[in-house]
């Protein structure tokens, strides 16, 4: 086949390959109840219990505050599990090798997983918003709903990077346990379940190095729920954290390639 035809094909189909990959992975994930159900149910369930039922003290303060923290808790899971467990399993089952010897652009694979994490984040955020507005009396300006949603959806990226770094290094069987060991303690220590002010002081210090804490502070700031107000610090931290994870992931990828 002539190079001109390949170029034409490449130009017309690269986008197609990306979209087909994302569509295929999305369908596979949807058909796997073990992924979709807990990632959608846990944050909404926790929000209903702690934000709406226990938090009902006459005002909507708890329901509003926890929109940011359970929002952060919610969007972490599809990113961490989709990448961490997904990549580790596909690597262990030789699917990654099968894709590596195919002409699939590696970025299409990452794009698909990122798009799925963001799509799930969108659904989780919308579920929480609807619950908060209907049953928690949460009232926010339209712009704040929008900025909070966008922040949380883009906020999946550091956790996608973290998941990828883990998924390229650990075995398929161990990956779920390791991701849970990262996900749950980090959520607790970042004050996503219980506000940090109830923590001993030294434990509050620990939170500062956790990406979930930094994202939650930005989210709390957006809806004026007592964030630190240091938006730039948190942003720089999250960008640095993402870069470090991608660097570790890239080294893991190299190691797999040069095996």
């Amino acid at each position, binding site marked *: 086949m002539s190079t001109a035809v390949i170029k034409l094909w490449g130009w017309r189909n690269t986008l197609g390959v990306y979209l087909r990959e994302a569509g295929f992975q999305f369908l*596979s994930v949807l*058909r796997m109840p073990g992924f979709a159900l807990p990632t959608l149910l846990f944050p909404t369930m926790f929000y209903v219990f702690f934000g709406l039922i226990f938090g009902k003290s006459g005002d909507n303060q708890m329901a509003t505050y926890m929109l940011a923290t359970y929002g952060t808790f919610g969007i972490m899971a599809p990113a961490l599990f989709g990448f961490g467990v997904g990549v580790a399993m596909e690597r262990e089952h030789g699917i990654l090798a*099968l894709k590596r010897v195919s002409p699939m652009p590696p970025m299409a694979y990452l794009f698909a997983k990122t798009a799925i994490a963001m799509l799930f984040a969108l659904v989780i955020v919308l579920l929480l918003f609807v619950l908060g507005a209907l049953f928690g009396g949460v009232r926010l300006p339209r712009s704040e709903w929008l900025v909070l949603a966008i922040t949380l959806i883009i906020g999946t990226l550091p956790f996608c990077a973290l998941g990828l770094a883990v998924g390229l290094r650990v075995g398929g069987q161990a990956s779920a346990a390791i991701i849970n060991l990262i996900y749950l303690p980090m959520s607790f220590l970042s004050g996503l379940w219980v506000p940090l002010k109830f923590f001993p002081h030294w434990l509050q210090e620990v939170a500062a190095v956790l990406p979930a804490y930094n994202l939650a502070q930005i989210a709390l700031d957006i809806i004026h729920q007592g964030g630190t107000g240091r938006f730039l610090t948190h942003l720089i931290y999250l960008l640095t954290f993402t870069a470090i994870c991608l660097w570790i992931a890239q080294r893991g990828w190299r190691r797999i390639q040069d095996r």
Partner: protein
Amino acid sequence: MPQHNNSPAIIAALKGVSQRYGSVTAVDNLSLDIRRGEVLALLGPNGAGKTTCVNLLLGLAWPTSGRTELFGQSPREVSVRRRIGTMLQSAQLGGHARLHEVIALYSGYYPNPLPSTEVLRIAGLEGLENRPVVKLSGGQKQRLLFALAICGNPELLFLDEPSVGLDVESRRGFWASIRRLREQGRSIVLTTHYLEEADALADRIVVINRGRIVATGTPTEIKNTVAQRHIRCVTQLTAAQVQALTSVSSVKQNGQRLEIAATQPESVLRELFSLDPTLHDLEVSSAKLEEAFLTLTENKPEEKAT
């Protein structure tokens, strides 16, 4: 039979390639050419280095030393990957995607894929289009891997232990598919530890053991090197005398009888009769090919000059 091309073009090569994992040498300074239009079988016992050779050719592993070429380029070039198809031994398909969706996904990676109906027909998967991959039997998953290898309409096909897990009948069907693909002008590299399979499919066999090539040739040549006959008889000749005869590879005294292994039993028998007219209780049997092949791979490394 080999193609009638005067100068068969070399489309893939390992050039003095070694692959070491720590202290283990999986492939040891190995050179190998793959010619356009041929079916090349890499034959050897488990752990011989066949899969490592395939992984090196595919760029899935990077050689410790030496060079790999596919179509004159690095195997990691996308333009190269568009021209090859691969069936990996290590791949375990699963998940809830339907069979036709998986084939459509992989076909979409290639500029000029085969129509899906043809892929399904060649792989023998017709009627299973809507079955979720997770519900396929082992043999069906194996055939789906084969389908993914051919869906891109490849010039060069790599099949790593393709018939493992297939029953006898599916294996015959599978062999027929491979022959048809070869007739279409595709080149095929397959690994197997069955001499029978290599014999049935290959134009050329490369026998590999402990990371080295121990024999190369047409199936007939390989069989002649490895196919031994066993001669049992009672004779007055000593084991040492018999050992000296042409083509005798081993002699064992078993009670009154001598057990002789030889590649050319006819000439051995003629000599035996002329040397010892009293020879009696004669029995000639052919060693099973598998057995003979084991002899070859077990003996060769010891006589190598390191």
